[in-house]
Structures are given as C-alpha cells and as structure tokens.
C-alpha cells in the first residue's frame, strides 16, 4: 500500500499543454476522485500515473519510489479501463489470471487466486464463460478482478461505470465503496459525474483545463467552494447565481440584488469592484408570498420527485432553481416571492473567486 505524490507535473501533446505544473498528494488508503468536464486532463493524469502516457515534466512518486519514467508493469498499480479491455479469446478465469500467467505463476496457484478474487466479486459461477457471454456489470467486475488479483499498491479507475445503465451504476457504486472499505488500498478514480465523486470519494480533485481548481472532502467542496467553477460543478441541481451590486467596504457585505432587495453576506475578503455574483443552493431558498422575500419570481416549470420538488423560476437577477415542499403547488406562470437564507450565501467577485471562504 502506498500513496501517490505528483510534483510539478506537465504534459504536452506537441505544442498543446494539457496539464500545467500540477501538484497533488493522494494519501495512502484514500479514495480520490479526479473530477472534471471532458477534456480537462483528468484521464491523461490517470494514464500518466499508470505509465501509459509519458510524463513531459515533473515527478511522480508512488510510496517513496520515483516512478516517473518507469514501465507500467513496474509501478505496482493496476488500472480498470473504461471499456474494460477484457480479452475476448480468454475465459473469465484466464482474464483474471492474465497477469499471473505472464509472471509464470503455477496453474494451481492461479486457481487459488482466481477463486479468492471471484468469490469477493461474486464471479465464482462465471469462471468458464467468455466476456461475450457476460452482462455489462459482470464484465466490469471481471475487469476489477483482473486488477485485484495483482494486489496492487494503487488502483486506478478510468470512468469505470460510464458504460453501465443508471440502475447498475448505482449498484456498482455501492460495490466499489464496499471494496474500498474491505481492502483499504489507495484508489484513484476518474469521473465526470459529480454524484459518483461525492458518494465514493473521501478526497475530490476538481480539474479544469489541466489546472486543479480545488482539492478537498466532498462536504468541503459542497459547502465551501473556493471559486465559481467548483460551486457550479458540485451539487445537483446546480447552485443558483444571481447578479448583484455590492456596497464596498462593509462587513457583512451588503449586496443589492438586480431587480430585488438587499442581502447581507458574511465575507472574508472585500471585492474590488461593486458588481458581484451571489451563489445560493436550491435548498437554501424558500418560496414565500408575492412581494415578500428578497426577490420576485415567476414559476416556469415544476419537477415533482415525490420526496421533494424542484421549482424553476425566472427572476430579474437570472433563472433560479428552488427546492420546495412537494405538498405545495406552484402552477406555471404564478408570481411568488423568494426568501434567501443569508447564512448560506456565497459571494463571487468578477474573476470568479469566492469571497466567502478563507483559502
């Protein structure tokens, strides 16, 4: 078991710089999610840790060992591919034991390992099948088994659940969480799905354009995003952003919402320009009688989920989503007032930096 340490990592494809001077520490035994929109460099970063992609500059350490220019096989990592990359001409057992047979392990020993791993992943009934005869979830488990059998220091997952349907994805997510609890091995997990990252990881790394935006626990990222990108990326439905004018210098900062009332926000830094954005999550807004609250709004669509409902509104400060009591009905087109919970406001300056958190 070991952690992973990345120092000043740079990756260039020709003239294009995909990752620029990235520093990251992945603690031993953690479940770290690399989260970002497609093209942010998260998969490239994972492939660099795996050794499938040459590192242009910087140092990669696994445990205490510098593996920057080491062959993939020598790094002690095992990767689970998005497409599973199972060998169609081999049975499940042969796929799982592929690395062992390459290493020249005896057939009997291979069988013992296959039995151990397949029991853990509930594949024991399927050992003689070929990948073509398996369902998506079973293939996924074989791919994990193939990595598991090597007893790696670090597991690398490249969007492992993206090829599964919604129901199976939730189920596999649970199984992965259980697996991590049982093994306690460091896992690095690439995903573009913030729900996956929130539910699985104990450390989330939000990447954009090859630059780390924020590293932290799921709750830190949710409650104290350090910039507008992280605030908008984490959470579903996403945070609402409202345009406003701040009166500079005051504490708490008083902000006049566009077309609405004034809110008081606790800030740790002062904006340099008066025009700021106020961020607030859907669950921190209450629908009140027309004319009351901080903002007027017009209901456009309502989504009923049973336990809760999401009301989509148009306000003078921009469109908003509000989590509302499902027993109350808000017909489309009706006028309402919106009351913002001022303890949960996030204020972003023009550059997108959050003024509400201390960095």
């Amino acid at each position, binding site marked *: 078991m070991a952690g992973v340490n990345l120092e000043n990592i740079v990756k260039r494809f020709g003239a294009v710089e995909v990752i620029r001077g990235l520093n990251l520490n992945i603690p031993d035994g953690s479940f770290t999610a690399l989260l970002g929109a497609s093209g942010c460099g998260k998969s490239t970063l994972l492939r660099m840790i795996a050794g499938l992609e040459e590192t242009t500059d910087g140092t990669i350490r696994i445990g205490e060992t510098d593996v920057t220019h080491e*062959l993939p096989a020598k790094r002690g990592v095992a990767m689970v591919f998005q497409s599973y990359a199972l*060998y*169609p*001409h081999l049975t499940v057992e042969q796929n799982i034991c592929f*690395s062992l047979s*390459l290493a020249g392990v005896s057939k009997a020993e291979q069988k013992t390992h296959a039995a151990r791993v397949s029991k853990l992943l509930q594949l024991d009934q399927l050992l003689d099948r070929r990948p073509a005869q398996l369902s998506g979830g079973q293939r996924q488990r074989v791919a994990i088994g*193939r990595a598991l059998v090597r007893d790696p220091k670090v597991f690398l997952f490249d969007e492992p659940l993206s090829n599964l349907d919604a129901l199976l994805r939730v189920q596999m997510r649970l199984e992965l969480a259980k697996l991590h609890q049982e093994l306690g091995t460091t896992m690095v997990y690439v995903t573009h799905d913030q729900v996956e990252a929130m539910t699985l990881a104990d450390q989330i790394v939000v990447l954009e354009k090859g630059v780390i935006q924020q590293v932290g626990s799921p709750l830190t990222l949710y409650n104290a995003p350090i910039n507008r990108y992280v605030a908008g990326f984490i959470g579903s439905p996403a945070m609402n952003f409202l345009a406003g004018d701040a009166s500079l210098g005051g504490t708490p900062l008083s902000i006049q919402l566009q077309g609405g009332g004034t809110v008081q926000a606790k800030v740790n830094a002062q904006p340099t320009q008066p025009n700021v954005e106020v961020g607030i999550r859907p669950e921190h807004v209450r629908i009140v009688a027309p004319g009351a609250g901080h903002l007027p709004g017009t209901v456009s669509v309502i989504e009923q989920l049973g336990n809760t409902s999401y009301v989509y509104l148009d306000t003078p400060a921009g469109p908003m989503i509000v989590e509302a009591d499902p027993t109350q009905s808000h017909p489309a087109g009706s006028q309402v007032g919106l009351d913002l919970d001022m303890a949960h406001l996030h204020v972003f300056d023009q550059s997108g930096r959050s003024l509400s958190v201390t960095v």
Partner: protein
Amino acid sequence: MTSPAILPERGMGDRISAAFWRRPRLLLILLLTPPVLWLGIVYLGSLAALLLQSFYSIDEFSGVVKQEFTLKTYAELFRAQNLDIILRTLLMAILVTLTSAVIAFPIAYFAARFAKGRWKAVFYLGVMLPLWSSYLVKVYAWKLILAREGILTWIADHVGGGPLLARALDEQWFGGSSLSTSPLGTFIVFVYIWMPYMILPMQAALERVPVSMLEASSDLGASRAQTFRTVVFPLALPGIIAGSIFTFSLTLGDYIIPQIIGNSARFIGLAVYQFQGTAGNVPLAAAFAMVPILIMLVYLWIAKRMGAFDAL
C-alpha cells in the same frame, strides 16, 4: 387549418410500398428468391453434379462414362502418379500460405496500427493495385523477371548473390535450369499473386483490436513479446485464418501459374483441366476437384478445434 397530418396517396409507388408495409413477408420473398435460386441451382447444383460425377467411372476400352455408383475413381486418386500430384499441390499450398502469412503480418500490422490518412490510402492502393491488372499479364511479367536473363538473375550477379542463386537452383526438389523453370519460381509467383488476399483480412482483424487491450496488457505486466503472443496474435488469428483460406484454396485450385512458370510438374488444378478436357475423363477430374474441398473442410475443422475463431 394548416396542412393535414395524413397525406393523400400519390400514385402507384405509394400503393406498392403500402402493400409491402402491410405484408413484410412478401417483400422478403421477392428480395430473396433470385439470389436463393442462383445459389441453390447454379452454385450448389453444379457442386452436387460434380460430386455425383465423381462417383461414376470411365470404361477403359470405350472411354465412355458409366453412370453407375462406384468408388473406383476415388481409388484411382491413390495411384502413385495421382497421389504425387495431390501431395505436391498440398505442400505448395502450405508453403505459400505460411510464407504469405509471415510477409503479410508486418505490412498489415503497420497499416492497422500506424498508418493514418494519406499513408492509409497509399497502403490500400499499394495492396490492391496489382489486383486491378490482369492475372495473365502479371504471370507473364514474372516469367520475364525470373528468366535466366531476367532482372532477378542480373541483380543477384551484381550484388554477389549469383553463386547462391546457382546453388539454390541446383537443389534437386525445387531447383531447375532457371528460376522461371523451377518449382522455386512457381512458389515465388504464387506468393506474389495471392499476397493481397492475405494482407487485407489480416489488416481488418488487427484494426479491430482496441488500443486499450494492448495498454491493459502492458499494465498487467506483459513485455512487448508477451503482448504480441498472448493478445495481438490470438486476436488477429481469425483474420490470419481468413487470409489463409484464400491463399490455401486459391493455390490448391490454380492451373495457370504451374503451366507458365515451373518445371511443368502437374498440380491438382492442372490435372482437373487436363482430365476433363483432352483426356475426357470427367469422373476422375471430378474426384480430383473434390480433393481441395475436402482438404479445406479438414483445415477449417482443425482451425476451429484450435480455437482460431474464439475471438470472433
């Protein structure tokens, strides 16, 4: 009112297409009848006629075909001179197939893994171009290339390979007075002529191997040689088998190349040609023609048993 949602019927075409829509089976029958008739009667029918003929025999005095069931004709295949033809053809087909596979693999591998855009076009053109010119022209061109005064001998002499070539031509079982009159020459031309049929299926099979499978293999600790042996080769095997079916069966059946290039030793194709023509022994020709079919069936059965199609 805007335009109506149901459009009016417009003539014959709409009515026919509506009829087909109501009875999908009718369309299927109409589409399938011509090819099934062709395949059933012309293609399989002639094959059945061939099989039937091979069970007849020829009256040795009158030279007339006796239409009675007998295995006598098949027994004749095992006479020394006929068995000789079969074994010679089989050996040639095996050697041509193996050599084609060895030469084609790097070409197909390069085309599948590394060639992009313009180079891919160059590859396809280079492989297919020879197929566009006449088979006979190519064979006669090779006769000149391989002749005693031909370019190959000339090159061999100039790079100091003359003695080596002479030494090879002295060899009893594949030599001759020149390359164009030796079995070695026949072999070279066979390999050249059938090469595209080996490269193309191989390239198609190699191209279907996803890069992630190669990456997974190196991640799981395989050296390049191990990746080739345990991943690339097994996954390319269906393509190699498909290519070898072409080179193998085409060599088994060809009767022109051995006539033009080589020492006029007879091959199965040539035997079939001569027995059904000048000799008028159609049953023996038919029996000879069944040999490649049987060999191919055995070959495919062995290939299947060895798991060549597992990756399909």
